[in-house]
């Protein structure tokens, strides 16, 4: 019964094209990043070599300035701060939304419809969603106009747009999706009888939430957290647009270096960023064994 079609092919041939794409456009490029980070460079060319020049330059002055922070450390502190704030807000909002969908919306069709409505903006352009804050938060934006009319403030607030606040707001706006869907997915699998059992055993709502729902929703929480944290750590677009190109971030260092065609320092910074991201994920993997939860 053997016919020659792709469905009699062995598994490795079926997965071949897929694996090829990741080999060519992910694994080999990453290897080049590591390799070039040890290369030397001149103003206009790459020089194959083995030197720590790019790393040394990146951390230049860090030791001398202690206890003060050098540029790279300051940038990482600021990026991690954004990370933490965005993680906290997306988690709180995402968890609440997922909880509402999973436990308070009764029909499955309605659950799916509402989850879909929360997902649709994710499928539209991120930059458009960022600039859509301009008419609201700008100097003459709706928020300032409204507050002035209400007499809360006399002068328009300057920190609403092109500021740390705007960056965090945009991140939360763009990426809460990554928390809602995995947490909702975990919660939807919780056996409702467990909740009833907790209630019958006399648990209050908060106790049920804390001792039954949160532990069972942990896989979703961890997956969502990994998404949000890695996106914010490597971001340069949101920080650029919402920070008015004035705020530094770990991803933006790489972009700036590339703009100056300094490939080895860009690669060195990419390696450092990758190491920090992997460190954070390893730490999170300690909390929950991600492999077991998938």
């Amino acid at each position, binding site marked *: 019964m053997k016919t020659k079609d792709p469905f009699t092919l062995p598994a490795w041939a079926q997965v071949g*094209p897929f694996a090829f794409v990741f080999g060519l456009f992910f694994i080999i490029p990453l290897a*080049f990043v590591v390799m070039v980070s040890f290369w030397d460079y001149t103003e206009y060319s790459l020089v194959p070599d083995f030197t720590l020049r790019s790393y040394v330059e990146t951390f230049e002055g860090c030791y001398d300035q202690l206890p003060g922070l050098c540029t790279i450390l300051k940038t990482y502190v600021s990026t991690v701060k954004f990370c933490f704030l965005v993680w906290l807000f997306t988690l709180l909002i995402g968890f609440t939304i997922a909880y509402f969908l999973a436990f308070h919306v009764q029909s499955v069709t309605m659950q799916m419809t509402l989850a879909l409505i929360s997902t649709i903006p994710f*499928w539209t352009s*991120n930059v458009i969603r960022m600039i859509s804050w301009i008419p609201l938060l700008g100097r003459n934006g709706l928020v300032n106009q409204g507050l002035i009319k209400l007499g809360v403030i006399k002068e328009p607030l300057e920190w609403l747009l092109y500021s740390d606040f705007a960056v965090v707001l945009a991140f939360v706006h763009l990426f809460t999706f990554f928390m809602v869907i995995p947490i909702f997915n975990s919660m939807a699998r919780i056996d409702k009888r467990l909740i009833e059992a907790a209630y019958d055993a006399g648990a209050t709502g908060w106790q049920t939430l804390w001792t039954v729902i949160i532990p069972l929703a942990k896989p979703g929480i961890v997956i969502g957290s990994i998404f949000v944290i890695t996106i914010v750590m490597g971001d340069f*677009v949101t920080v650029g647009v919402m920070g008015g190109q004035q705020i530094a971030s770990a991803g933006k260092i790489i972009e700036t270096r590339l703009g100056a065609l300094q*490939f080895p320092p860009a690669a060195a910074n990419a390696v450092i960023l*990758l190491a920090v991201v992997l460190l954070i994920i390893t730490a999170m993997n300690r909390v929950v064994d991600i492999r077991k939860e998938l």
Partner: protein
Amino acid sequence: MREGRPGSFYWLLAFFCAFLLFLYGPMITIFVLSFQGPEGGLTFPLRGLSLHWFEKLWNGGGIVDIKGAFVRSVFMSLTVMAATVVLSVLAGLAFRKRFRGQALVFYVTVASLIVPSIVTSLGIALQFRLFDDFIKTYGPEWLSEGYTTAMGLYTSGMGAHLTWTLPFGLLIMFAIFNRFDTRLEEAARDLGATPWQTFRFVILPIILPSLVGVGLFGFTLSWDEIARSSQSIGEKNTLPLELQALTTTVTTPEIYALGTVTTGVSFVVIGVALASILTLRARQARKGSDAGKGLV
């Protein structure tokens, strides 16, 4: 069972509505503002209602080759979408069996989601740059003469997009096949169907609505991609890259008009996808079972 809705329901409902306002509110504002009159600015109030800024956009007034970028992006996203669906389905089928390196392929796919986009983008840029240098220096004359770069929309650019769309595709395929009733295939095999017939007449019709979902992710993620394209797209930019550059230079509602058009395309694609999913589901419900119809 407790009866009726608990009080917390109304708080959570209010929170959910506020969340939707937060999600959609800003989008609606720029939609409204893109219809500003010719004298209107970037913020309210609306000074008249017109299609002035759309017209300006259409004529390309002041903005660099936006029409070209638009067309390039549409074709590229469609190509990425097709590649994402085909490669994900094949990989999804492979993952239902055992093969050597299965765990490796899975971890690499997940890693591609986790490694910051700018790092992947930089890597692809370096790869092509070094490749170009190699060709120029060591390549045979017929090749190196007049050679500039292998970088482009459909080489490095598309590769970069696929490292972002394929992981979503594979994860969706996992979700599909986890729920798949394997007895249906066994039945088909028992009735003498070839592997191709089993796929074509049993598996495909069942998973088709979900494949539309894979395609939707493939198109929309590629349509909006910036971070991975930024270093790897080559000479010709896609629409979102042009748009990002415009955010710092354009100070007229023209950029809102462009935003409305871009979002419009996204909504059309989402609408078409959801409509086809519903149609396919209805078709399944109608034709899925011949129970009670007697012998055919």
